[in-house]
C-alpha cells in the first residue's frame, strides 16, 4: 500500500507480551515480506523499547527509518509503526485509539491472558482501526462499539439484549426469510 501517496499510512500494529512474543500483529506494508523478517522486526523493536517507561504516556522512537509509537500496560506492549515522514501525532492517535478500544473490550483487565482469552475481539479491533494501511477510525470507544455491536452473545437471553439489537436481529431474520 505504498502508493497511497500523501495519505497517512500505517505500516503495522503490534501487540506483544512482556517477552516480546506475539499476541496479535497486523502488517499493512511490504517492508517485511516474510514471517521471519516480521519476527526479527518485532524482536528488534521490543529490545529497543523494553527498558523505557511507556506506562503513563505513549513513548516514541525512530528505528531503521520507521517511527514507532508505543505504550505498555501490565504485560502487554502496544506498538504502531509508520514511515519516518509520517506525522508523529497521527500515529499516536492510532495507538491511543487501539489502546482505548482494547481497554474497553477487555473491561479494564488489560493483560496478556485476558487478551488471549478474547483474541477474537482483539483481531476484530485491529480490523476496525486500519484497512490496508489506511486509518479507518481512531476513536477508541467507537472502535470498541463497532467490534461489540455485532458480537452479541448468541446465548444471551433476548431480554438482555438492548431494544435496538433485538430490532436489528429481528429485521435481519425478516429480510433473510424474504431473500431466501
Amino acid at each position, binding site marked *: *500500500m505504498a*502508493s*497511497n*501517496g*500523501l*495519505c*497517512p499510512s500505517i505500516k503495522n500494529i503490534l501487540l506483544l507480551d512482556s517477552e516480546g512474543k*506475539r499476541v*496479535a*500483529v497486523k502488517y499493512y506494508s511490504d517492508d517485511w515480506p516474510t*514471517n521471519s523478517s516480521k*519476527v526479527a522486526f518485532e524482536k528488534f523493536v521490543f529490545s529497543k523499547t523494553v527498558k*523505557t*517507561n511507556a506506562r503513563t*504516556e*505513549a*513513548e*516514541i*522512537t*525512530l528505528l531503521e527509518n520507521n517511527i514507532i*509509537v508505543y505504550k505498555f500496560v501490565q504485560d502487554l506492549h502496544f506498538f504502531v509503526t509508520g514511515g519516518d515522514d509520517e*506525522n*508523529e*501525532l*497521527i*500515529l*499516536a*492517535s492510532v495507538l491511543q485509539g487501539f489502546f482505548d478500544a482494547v481497554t474497553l473490550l477487555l473491561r479494564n483487565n488489560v*493483560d*496478556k*491472558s*485476558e487478551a*488471549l*482469552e478474547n*483474541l*477474537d475481539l482483539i*483481531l*476484530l479491533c485491529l*480490523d476496525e482501526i486500519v*484497512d*490496508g494501511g*489506511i*486509518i*479507518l*477510525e*481512531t476513536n477508541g470507544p467507537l472502535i470498541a462499539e*463497532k467490534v461489540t*455491536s*455485532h*458480537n*452479541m*452473545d*448468541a*446465548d444471551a437471553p433476548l431480554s438482555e439484549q438492548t431494544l435496538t439489537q433485538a430490532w*436489528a436481529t429481528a*429485521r*435481519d*431474520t425478516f*429480510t433473510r426469510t424474504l*431473500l431466501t
Partner: protein
Amino acid sequence: MAQSYVKKDDDRDDEVEYSPFMGIEKGAVLQEARVFNDPQLDARRCSQVITKLLYLLNQGETFTKVEATEVFFSVTKLFQSRDLGLRRMVYLIIKELSPSADEVIIVTSSLMKDMNSKTDMYRANAIRVLCRITDGTLLTQIERYLKQAVVDKNPVVASAALVSGIHLLQTNPEIVKRWSNEVQEAVQSRAALVQFHALALLHQIRQNDRLAVSKLVTSLTRGNVRSPLAQCLLIRYTSQVIRESGNNTQSGERPFYDYLESCLRHKSEMVIFEAAKAITDLNGVTSRELTPAITVLQLFLSSSKPVLRFAAVRTLNKVAMTHPMAVTNCNIDMESLISDQNRSIATLAITTLLKTGNESSVDRLMKQITNFMSDIADEFKIVVVEAIRSLCLKFPLKYRSLMNFLSNILREEGGFDYKKAIVDSIVILIRDIPDAKESGLLHLCEFIEDCEFTYLSTQILHFLGIEGPKTLDPSKYIRYIYNRVHLENATVRASAVSTLAKFGASVDALKPRIFVLLRRCLFDSDDEVRDRATLYLSTLGGDIETDIDVRDFLFGSLDTPLVNLETSLKNYEPSEEAFDINLVPKEVKSQPLADKKAAGKKPTGLGAPPTGPASTVDSYERLLLSIPEFANFGKLFKSSAAVELTEAETEYAVNVVKHIFDTHVVFQYNCINTIPEQLLEDVIVIVDASEAEEFSQVFSKPLRSLPYDSPGQTFVAFEKPDGSPATGKFSNILKFIVKEVDPTSGEAEDDGVEDEYQLEDLEVVAADYILKVPVSNFRNAWESLGPDCERVDEYGLGPRESLSEAVNTVINLLGMQPCEGTEVVPPNSRSHTCLLSGVFIGDVKVLVRLSFGLDGAKDVAMKLAVRSDDETVSDAIHEIVASG
C-alpha cells in the same frame, strides 16, 4: 473465563502461564474445522475454531494450498448461520485466507446479499471483504452498489466503500474514477472520517490533473473541513500545490501561506503540527514565514507528552540545518530536554543545540552534556561525539574545552566503536586545528597507557610517529611509546618500535638515545618486533644524518596497490631471477565482463595456475606475467576494457583487451567456442596492420585447444615507437583447426579441418595511452604544474546536437578523468568549462581545461588548454583533438 480470573490472583512465577492456545497444533485445529460442515451449526464453537485458525495464521503458521482451500470451502458454509458474531469472524478469516479467483465466486453471492442487507455492519464489512478479494470483472457487477454506498447515510458504510475505493484505484482506476460525483458529495459529509476518506480518494482520482487539485485545494481551504485527519490531508495537498507553483511567485505573498498559518491555530495538535511541518518544509522559506511555526513547535517542546516533544524537536533539528538562527529562540527549552527520559528526544535536542549554539554557549552546553553522557547508550554517545567534532571545527577557539571533554570521555568506560569515534575526532582536531596538536597528542598518549583495543593502540602509535616528531619537544612522547614495548602484546610492541624509529629518523638530536632503546628491542620474544628493530638499526645508520632515500624506503607510502603486489607474489615461482617489485603493475583495473563469465571455470591452455576466487583484476597480470615473451616489455601501463569483436550469439565469441606498454602493445583475444560438437585447436588471430603503419608485429601466441564453452586466450604483440601514442586500425581473422566432437563420448576425432572466421576491426586510439587518474583539487594541481608546458588552442567542433554531447565526445576522445563533476552540462547553458585529469604514457601527469561555447544555433567552439610536465605530451594531446 473463570479459570483466568482464578489464575490472576495466584503467584504467576510458580506456574506455567496459562493460555487458551497452549499446545495448539495446526493439524488438530484443521480437524476441528470440520464442525463447519455440521448440519446443526454451533455458532459459538465455530467462532472459537475460527479464532484458533486466525491465531495460527497470526503466529506465522502457513497453510498449504490444499489446507487453505479446504478451510475456505467449509467456512463458506457458515454463511447459513445468522449469528452476528460468527459472521464477523467469517469475514475476517476470508480476508486472511485471500482465496484465489475461482474460489471467490463461491462467496460472491453471499457477500452481495450481505452488501444489500439492512444491517449496516453487514454492509460495511461485506463491502470491505468483497473489494479485497474481488477482481475487475466482478467489480462491474457490484459497482452500482458501491457508488450508492459512498453516499450512504451510515458513516461506517460510506467509509468502507471509500477506503475500498482507494485500494481499488490501484488496480481498476477506470471504474473508481466514475464515482467522482458521489465522492465529491461525500467530501461534504458531516462525519469526520467519511470526509477524510472521501478527500483522500478524490485527490487520488485527480492527482494527475494539476489544475483540478489546485481547484480542490482552493475551494476546501476556504471552506470548513471538520475532521483533523482530513485537515492534515488538505495541508499536505496544499504544500504540494505550493511546491508545484513554486517558481511563479515573485517577492510577494506565497499563495496559501495564510491558510497554513491559520492551521497553526487549529484546536487539534495533529493539525497544528502538520501545518508547522509544512511551513518549515516550504521551498526557500523566509524567516518571517518560519517564525509562527517555530513558536508553536517551541510550545510543544515543553509538553508533557513525549510524542509531541519528539515531533517538535525532530522538526526543529531539521530546520537547524538550514536556518540555525531561526531555532536559537528555542535553545532554553531545548537545553531542558537534554535530560529527557526519552533518549531519542535527548539526543535530538543535543545535536540541535550543537548546530545552533554560539561560541559563548559552548562551555555551558559542554557542562550539561557531561552530566548526560554517563547514562546513555553507546550509540547515542557516538552521535554526540560526532556533533562535538563538527562544533569544534566551527569554533576552533573553543578547542580547549571540547578537547578536554573528549579526553574525559575517552578515559571512561565504553565499547570499541565509541572509543574509536572519540579517537577519530581527536585525530581530526589535531589535523585541522594546529593549536590543539600538543594537547591532543598528549591525550592520545595517556589513552594508550591504558587501552584495551590493540587496533586503536597501533593506529595511535602510527599517528604519533607522523605528528610527534614535528612538535616542539618530541622527546616527551618517547616515554609513552617505549612503555608500550614493555607492557603490550606483540602487535602493539612492533608498531611501537616503528614509531620509535620514525622519531629517530626525523629528529637527529634524539637518534642516539632512540638507538639505545631500539637495541633493547633486539631481545624481544616476538620475531616481528626483533626484525623491525634490526631493520631500523641497520638502515638508519648510526650517528650520521639519515639518508632521504632510506627514510622514503622505510616510511614512505607504498605506491603499488596491495592487491597487485599480493597476486604477483603468489605468481612468483622460486627461480634464479629475484622478484622485482617494479614489475608489479600499479594500476587497479576494473573487471571486464567477459572475464567475469570465465571466473570460476578452470582455465585451459597456457598452463595458467588454477584460479581461486581472485578477482579478474589480477587475471591479466597473471596471464601476462606467465608468458615469458612479454617479460621484457617492462611495466604494464594500461589495459583497456574488453572490446567485442563478434556479434552476440555467434558461433565463436571473441573480445579483445588492449594492453599498453611503453614500447609495445599486446592484444589479448578472449575466445569462447559456443558449439558443443566442436573442438578448436591451434587458434590464432591473423592481424593485418597495414592501416597501422607505426606498428610491427613481433610475436603471437596461439591457443593450443579451445573446447566448448571454456574460454581461452590468444595473444598478439606489436612493437611501436617508444612512448608515442601511435594509433591505427587492425583487421582480424580468427584461424583454427576444427575437430568434430562425438556428443555421446565427448571425444574429438583425430582429423581436423582448417577454417577461418572473420572478426571485426580493432582500433588503437589515443585514449588508450591515457590513464584516468582523478585529482582531488584541480585548481591546486593546475597551478602547481605551471604555465611552462602549457599549450592553448582553439577548435571549431562544427554543428553538434547539444553542448553536453560535444563535451562527452571530447571526454571520450581523450579518455581522461572528468574532475569536480564538470562533465555534467547544466541544461540550456550556452557555455561550459570542463576539467580533465589523467596520466599519459611514460607516467606524465596531464591536466586539461576545456572551454566550450555555443556559437550561433548549433556550432560548438572549444578552447583547449593543456598543462603537463612535458611539452611534447601537451602537444600530443592537441594532436589527438586535432585529428579526432
